[in-house]
């Protein structure tokens, strides 16, 4: 019980410290893992520099005007009728939101 309460407080603290619009930022180790996945696995279709491939470009310019929740939804639930697969079996909603933020910032290695 105390553990859960502590966890809730810690989570709230993390959310407060994170960028606006983010519920909880993933930890450092997980961030590295997610960025590696982004480059290597997302990069298989979207290009390692996110300039697109079989899948569309995910550069800041390409994502401009596209709302966050739609992009988070695409990551988590995929895009039926296209090769974009759902990743919710291993990526949480918070993590997807964090990935969208990295893409908007023009993440490159």
């Amino acid at each position, binding site marked *: 019980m105390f553990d859960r309460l502590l966890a809730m407080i810690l989570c709230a603290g993390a959310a407060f410290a994170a960028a606006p619009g983010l519920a909880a930022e993933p930890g450092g180790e997980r961030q590295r893992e997610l960025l590696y996945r982004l480059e*290597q696995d997302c990069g298989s279709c979207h290009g390692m*520099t996110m*300039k697109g*491939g*079989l899948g569309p470009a995910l550069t800041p310019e390409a994502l401009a005007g596209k709302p966050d929740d739609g992009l988070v939804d695409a990551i988590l639930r995929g895009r039926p009728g296209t090769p974009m697969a759902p990743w919710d079996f291993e990526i949480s909603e918070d993590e997807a939101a964090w990935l969208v933020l990295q893409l908007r910032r023009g993440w490159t290695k």
Partner: protein
Amino acid sequence: MTANPVRATILICLIAVGAALLAGCADQAGMRGTGDAGVVIERAAGRLAVIETTTNSLLHKVPGLGDTSHASVVFSRDERYAFIFGRDGGLTKVDILAGKLVGRVIQAGNSVGGAISQDGRLVAVSNYEPGGVRVFDARTLEQVADIPAIGADGAASKVVGLVDAPGNRFVFSLYDAGEIWIADMSDPGSPRITKFRDVGRLPYDGLITGNGRYYVAGLFGEDGLVKLDLWNTGAGVTRILAGYGRGEEPLPVYKMPHLEGWAVAGDIVVLPAVGRHEVLLVDLASWQEVGRIAVHGQPVFAVARPDARQVWVNFAHPGNDTVQVIDLPSRRIIATLKPGKAVLHMEFTPRGEHVWVSVRDDDKVIVYDTATLEPVATLPLDKPSGIFLTARAHKIGL
């Protein structure tokens, strides 16, 4: 003419020095053939590792290839030059004997693969952006033809599944438009194009049979594949394996299957099923399904050992730490290997005693003995992906 001992001595000395220099040069050049050579893409570094399969060693590293996610390679017919097709639209020519980059052009914004013509004079690149095929002189890398892929709907389409075919032709698929085109390069400057419309939804890759007769495209948007008989193009495209998913909802695909490394074993073609954890066995004469084998995950490559007795299969994320070996006569999985994290590609030596397996996340390539299924060598390489041995130079479609 009177003898001049001094001049004679000098002459003898010069000959001796010359011979020594020549011998030295020969050694320095490492006089060797390239029949046992190959290349491995170091995908994140944009670098080529030149290897040899006799003692399983690294010969050279050649940097400067740009974005090599999804890079592929074809070889000149003398097996000296590798042409690398990069994601960033780069077409790079590497002298694998010297270990030197000898030519590079950025020919488009975004590309996916390429092919070399039957006569070895032309290299074609398939592009996503701008969608189409561009053809280059294999010697100079000067552009000789541009084939924009404008579908029947008037929109530009990404091009996939580009292969060479006999008759100095290139065959490819238009992903967005759902078309297959043949470009006859008899007159390289003005290709003659034959178009097949409405072949099916989202053809995502293509293959050509080893005899150069059939072109087969996989469809992502439909349950089935399409086949084109290049000996009888008037018959048009025909649908094969329609409804192989039996109407079941396809599973998500975390990496697109590749048909290029397809397996043909006698009369049987082995194909990865899309959205199913199965490989399909197809009779090459009737093009009917004759069986399917349940496998570990979504298959990416299914490649046959050159004697076609074994088929090795790798898988999409999250099953990509595994390789399965199928014994084709019995249609049984005889081994499930765990080479490491993110197995991306497999390439057999020309007579099949070894297979080279790239393990991206573990930064290594493992060479397996295909009889014992035990590793015989491991090469540390940086994020290795595609492995291409020079024997491809003499195979139609590779």
